[in-house]
């Protein structure tokens, strides 16, 4: 089928390999990927900071840009949540209301799309090593996605999944929170990094670029060599197949 | 008038709200259990919170158990007890068997100090809640302090007082003609974990809670 990729501004600027991996993976599974090049930012930073008008403007833009009927795949639980749960309310009074609801209904986070929509848990990937999975908060609690990424990881040849202590605890990123309350954000990150290191994993996997930047920053600050990988990167890899 | 000010604010805040009626609270699944199963559940839950449950078959066995509890509590134990039929009978019989033991049936207003100085208080539970291991104690004609001030509390009760869950127990109390000024639910000994989450029993209330559960109360 045809799918539209919403790559997210964070991945676009700071982790484009996440977008490339998502495209590689979806194409390998036989899907046609469209990337509407007018896309920028979904508006979540403004929304979470209380700037509703600014958020609504960017939401309306995004609704227009993704007006094609194909499902929208987002390699981020957080941005997918923004579109699914917050766009309809934010735009309900304006002319974009119906389109926002329609977009919400066809927008999926990547792992959710693979397992729930496509029914795939084995995507023919191979990646050799021990990984631990961090539940990003919006993916887990707003979209209710807990098992899907783990089932996908279990389907990857060569991957050993080790659970960290409290994988569902927040990493402390929280968007603007990370810079508004930097000391608190870092203090929340500390036990998360410790529990990742304690697993002895080669890589920590998450489905949100924001969490991964936070985790990478904490791991590097401690001199850890544990890699931070988006789930898409593991699923796109065929290293040991 | 603050009353009118508050109520007016409440009315203004709720103006125009339509409120759907509240469904009645349905009986829980534990209601289906029979007496023996309720006793098993009660005993399990009560022990889990540190209550010492003694299951006895007869009044004679209950008196034996009570004698053992009194013996262990103190030499020449001072006992305060409710004047209810079962508590009075068992306490009287047990105390009579221990040299130097003293029994005070608390039938009228008694200084709290006198009750606090007892080694042991004996009450009779009106109901037992199987699902949570809870004793339900009414206040009418019974001193609330007997289950509170002495370091050890013993409740005697027959199996027929078992009910499945808290909802059932409170419903039975509501069905009674008289209302007490206070109904007390007791689930285990007095406890705290306020210092570094370390469990310590016997903060203000009893350190030890016994339940003597009789299979049959009838002679």
């Amino acid at each position, binding site marked *: 089928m045809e799918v539209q990729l919403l790559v997210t501004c964070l991945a676009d600027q700071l982790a484009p390999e996440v977008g490339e991996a998502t495209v590689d993976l979806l194409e390998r599974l036989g899907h046609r990927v469209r990337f509407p090049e007018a896309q920028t930012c979904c508006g979540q930073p403004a929304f979470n900071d209380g700037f509703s008008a600014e958020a609504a403007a960017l939401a309306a833009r995004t609704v227009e840009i993704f007006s094609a009927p194909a499902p929208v795949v987002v390699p981020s639980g957080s941005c997918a949540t923004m579109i699914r749960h917050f766009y309809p309310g934010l735009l309900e009074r304006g002319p974009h209301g119906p389109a926002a609801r329609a977009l919400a209904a066809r927008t999926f986070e990547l792992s959710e799309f693979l397992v729930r929509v496509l029914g795939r848990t084995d995507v023919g990937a191979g990646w050799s090593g021990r990984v631990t999975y961090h539940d990003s908060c919006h993916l887990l609690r707003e979209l209710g996605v807990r098992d899907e990424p783990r089932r996908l990881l279990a389907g990857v040849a060569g991957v050993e999944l080790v659970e960290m202590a409290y994988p569902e605890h927040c990493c402390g990123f929280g968007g603007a929170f990370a810079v508004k309350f930097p000391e608190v954000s870092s203090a929340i990150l500390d036990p998360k990094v410790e529990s990742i290191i304690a697993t002895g994993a080669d890589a920590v996997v998450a489905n949100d670029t924001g969490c991964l930047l936070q985790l990478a920053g904490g791991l590097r600050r401690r001199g850890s060599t544990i890699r931070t990988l988006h789930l898409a990167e593991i699923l796109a890899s065929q290293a040991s197949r | 008038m603050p009353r009118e000010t508050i109520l007016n604010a409440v009315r203004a805040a709720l103006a125009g709200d339509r409120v759907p009626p509240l469904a009645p609270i349905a009986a829980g699944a534990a209601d289906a259990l029979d007496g023996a199963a309720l006793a098993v559940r009660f005993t399990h839950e009560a022990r889990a919170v540190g209550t010492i449950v003694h299951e006895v078959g007869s009044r004679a066995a209950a008196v034996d158990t009570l004698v053992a509890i009194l013996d262990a509590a103190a030499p020449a134990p001072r006992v305060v007890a409710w004047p209810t039929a079962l508590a009075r009978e068992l306490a009287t019989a047990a105390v009579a068997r221990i040299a130097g033991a003293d029994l005070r049936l608390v039938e009228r207003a008694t200084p709290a100090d006198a009750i606090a100085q007892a080694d042991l208080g004996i009450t009779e539970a009106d109901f037992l809640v199987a699902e949570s*291991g809870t004793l339900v104690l009414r206040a009418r004609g019974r001193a609330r302090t007997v289950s509170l001030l002495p370091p050890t509390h013993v409740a005697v009760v027959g199996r027929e007082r078992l009910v499945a*869950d808290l909802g059932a127990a409170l419903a039975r109390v509501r069905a009674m003609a008289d209302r007490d000024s206070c109904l007390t639910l007791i*689930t285990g000994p007095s406890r*705290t974990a306020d210092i*570094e989450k370390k469990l310590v029993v016997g903060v203000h209330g009893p350190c030890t809670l016994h339940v003597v559960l009789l299979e049959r109360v009838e002679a």
Partner: protein
Amino acid sequence: MAAIATRDFRARAAAAAGDTALHRKLDAASLRFLDKRARVFAALPDADARRDRARAVKAHAIATLDTLLPELERRFTANGGIVHWARDGAAACAIVLDIAARAGVRLVVKGKSMVSEEIGLNACLEAAGIEAVETDLGEYIVQLAGEPPSHIITPAIHLSQDDVAALFTARLGEPLHSTAEALTAAARRLLRAKFRAAGMGVTGVNFASAESGTLVVVENEGNGRMALTLPRVHVALMGIEKLVARDEDFAPMLELLPRSATGQTLTSYVSLVTGPRRNDEIDGPEAVHLVLLDNGRTRLLADPIMREALYCLRCGACLNACPVYRRIGGHAYGYAYSGPIGAVIAPALLGIERVPDLPFASTLCGACRDVCPVRIDIPRLLLAWRARIAAAVPRAWGERLLVRGWRWIAWSPRLYRALTPIVRAGSALVARIPALARLAPPLAAWRRGRELPRAAPRSFHERWRDRRHGTDPDAP
């Protein structure tokens, strides 16, 4: 009024975030509560349906407060109790003082009451020369320390056993006790004397039913029972939101409150008080007063979005679940109610001008909503406060510039894509000369606990064009 020090929230939060000893104490308690809570909820049949039912019970009660409050008053009065209404904290304190003065009370023993903390009752009693003694062990400890409680359920969560031992030695002249058991025994002995001598007991109220005028007091230590049994006067302090319609609503609420708060099936003691001692009763108080407190609650009630905050049972589960609370503790919030629910109700009870930062002190992770027994959607309420604060309270110009500027940049695909080389150049420059991060406050903030990410050599937009040779028909 209670000491409310909400202004310096940011500074206090930052300081607490660096206090690793505090983190250890908070983790030890909060994670233990969370784990126990998870276990008992897993063992509770139909837990989700029970939460729905508890929410429905509270929603119904809050939506019918206009009839339930007068009904409670009528019933409780008929039971022989005395009902007082207090518009705010000062009025509530004045009512309690008046009751104490009329009864000639010099010593008050207190069960745990968050409303009492909210209205600052102890300071008020002491100013009038009346000794007020907290009797919940945790509350007693923080009172001795001269501090407010830092957790709704575990007031002394921020103190270690050694801290408490030193405090008992310094303030009470106790020999240096080394164990929690010995410290607890000392408190038992010292407080027994207070219970015996007190003329008045003050408690909170966890639930009250309008149907019968019954007040429910939930506790573990027995100090609540002491306070509502031994003194000749019992004063119960209650926020008007604690009502439920019917007696049959107690059981479903009692099933969830202890499980959520401490992971217990039920607390050691639950007292259901309908009024003063009856003629045919042997003990209990001669007079029972019920103080109904508004103090901003009707503002929450009038607010259709925030109203659900009134469903709160004060179980403290959201504090334990909150990653922010577990790193800054309750004192940083500067108010009786801390953690996620505190950040929701403080702006309503105190006014947003006084707590403009609190609703932002959340990663919006949603763990609070997951554990809330009445499913209060705390993240949504925090977002709603943020929107109101953004509209009402002027923000730093830098933040406005950033958000508004981003809105215009992201509005235009051309501007957005033009930004890429600038981000890249800036990132490379900061990587080479880290001190430059100081010129950009967000970067400097990030670097405090983490390494900065590097911008990618080519953005995804650029890579996509590489892949498709610029053939995308949507390209403007």
